[in-house]
């Protein structure tokens, strides 16, 4: 074939499974770079905002809680800073993944003109970015407070990671469901705010299960984030803290939500008009 100067042949699209996987990873990577550019631009702090925003949020909360020390931690001798950090950072992740998922497909519909960009890639890219952002925010905050002598690193990293894993799974599942539903039904978007608000008190951010009466304990464990919070805090504070989890239930709920989200996303293209 005649090929004029300066033109580059396109890489063969898809092919075998490994080729297809590599292509999908390339696409998700490109979407993440693009997302960073659109969201934070190239001016002022740029993508540092991804870390600064949760940092400011936590700093504010820590100040307020420190003033009210003891009153909210039920007299247990938990380090307020550790309690707030293990509470608010997962919360930030959850809030961000959910908010980022709202109308995610619509906002990126023009990119679907490139057939290697799949619906799910759009959400995946955003979710991975939020996971990264939260992890970096944690590391930066933890390092600064540790260096200042007011924070101790988690006593049991295994539990700490496991808790985050559950939390991430729940957040991503909710992102998938919200992302798909907001494209399918217009009024769902309006419910996201109230839903998040009403889930807040039961999500486990503000209490330890041990502080609750026995009958309520079993009930709140239906919310997978409660088990996740118990694990994260168990990892942070070590065996001195009594934790209660129901991992089979948390696993089942997370998997059910993930499956629902993926199924909804499979069908979302029928509801999306590509310009």
């Amino acid at each position, binding site marked *: 074939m005649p090929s004029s100067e300066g033109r580059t042949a396109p890489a063969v699209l898809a092919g075998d499974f490994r080729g297809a996987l590599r292509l999908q990873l390339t*696409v998700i*990577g490109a979407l993440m770079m693009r997302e960073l*550019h659109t969201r934070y631009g190239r001016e002022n702090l740029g993508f540092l905002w991804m870390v600064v925003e949760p940092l400011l949020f936590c700093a504010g909360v820590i100040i307020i809680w420190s003033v009210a020390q003891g009153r909210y931690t039920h007299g247990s001798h938990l380090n307020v800073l550790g309690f707030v950090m293990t509470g608010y950072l997962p919360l930030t992740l959850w809030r961000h993944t959910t908010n980022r998922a709202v109308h995610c497909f619509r906002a990126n519909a023009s990119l*679907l003109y490139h057939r290697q960009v799949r619906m799910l890639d759009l959400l995946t890219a955003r979710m991975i970015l939020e996971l990264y952002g939260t992890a970096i925010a944690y590391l930066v905050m933890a390092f600064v407070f540790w260096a200042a002598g007011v924070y101790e690193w988690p006593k049991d990293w295994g539990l700490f990671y496991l808790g985050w894993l559950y939390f991430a799974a729940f957040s991503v599942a909710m992102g998938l469901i919200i992302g798909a539903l907001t494209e399918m039904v217009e009024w769902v978007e309006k419910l996201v705010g109230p839903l998040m608000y009403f889930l807040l008190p039961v999500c486990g951010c503000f209490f330890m299960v041990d502080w609750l009466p026995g009958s309520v304990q079993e009930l709140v464990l239906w919310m997978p984030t409660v088990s996740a919070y118990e694990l994260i805090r168990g990892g942070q504070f070590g065996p001195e803290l009594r934790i209660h989890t129901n991992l089979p239930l948390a696993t089942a709920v997370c998997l059910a939500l993930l499956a629902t989200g993926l199924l909804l996303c499979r069908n979302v293209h029928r509801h999306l008009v590509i310009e």
Partner: protein
Amino acid sequence: MIRVENLHKVYRSHGGEHVVLRDTSFTVPRGFRLGILGRNGAGKSTLIRLIGKVEQPTRGRVSHEMSVSWPLGFSGSFQGSLTGIDNMRFIARIYRTDFEQLRAFVEEFAELGSFLYQPVKTYSSGMRARLAFALSIAIDFDCYLIDEVMMVGDERFHQRSRGHLFAPDSGRALVVASHDASFIEQVCDGALVISRGRTRYFDDVAEAIKTYKAL
């Protein structure tokens, strides 16, 4: 070769069903230039997007046995809030081509000057189409899907894109949707006429145009 087999597309809207395409089959061999004629709203763009695998058919399938461009048109394919250059970076990444080479070609070809550093949403539709054209020509596909963008740009741009895409010796296959019959007649080797969801293929483009004009 592009194979289109029993393609059927139905849009559901407010309690009703609208059949855009009824059971259409055809192939586009390498180097073949296929025109698609039809009135506004006849389903030309939908067909182009289905051929490009950007939209899912209700039934039937499309298979590509050569590299096929994304549907080039006035809308889609760019992120409005990003600059031309950043969009170019994105496209270089997902098509796995070399960014610097792409940029050199596009700067020269699209003649957008400093606009390349402005967000794409500030572009006129003509400028957008020029960027899309330049990018897709730089990537060098075997087949180009073109949706009503013949008239963009000035005479110079026309001549150059004609040289690259529409010249008989370019060796590239084309699928061009247009309601500009004379353009289809000049460029295409065969044409489909779409009307009320049905497509009819003509080897003789002049005859296709006669049918189209009688609609």
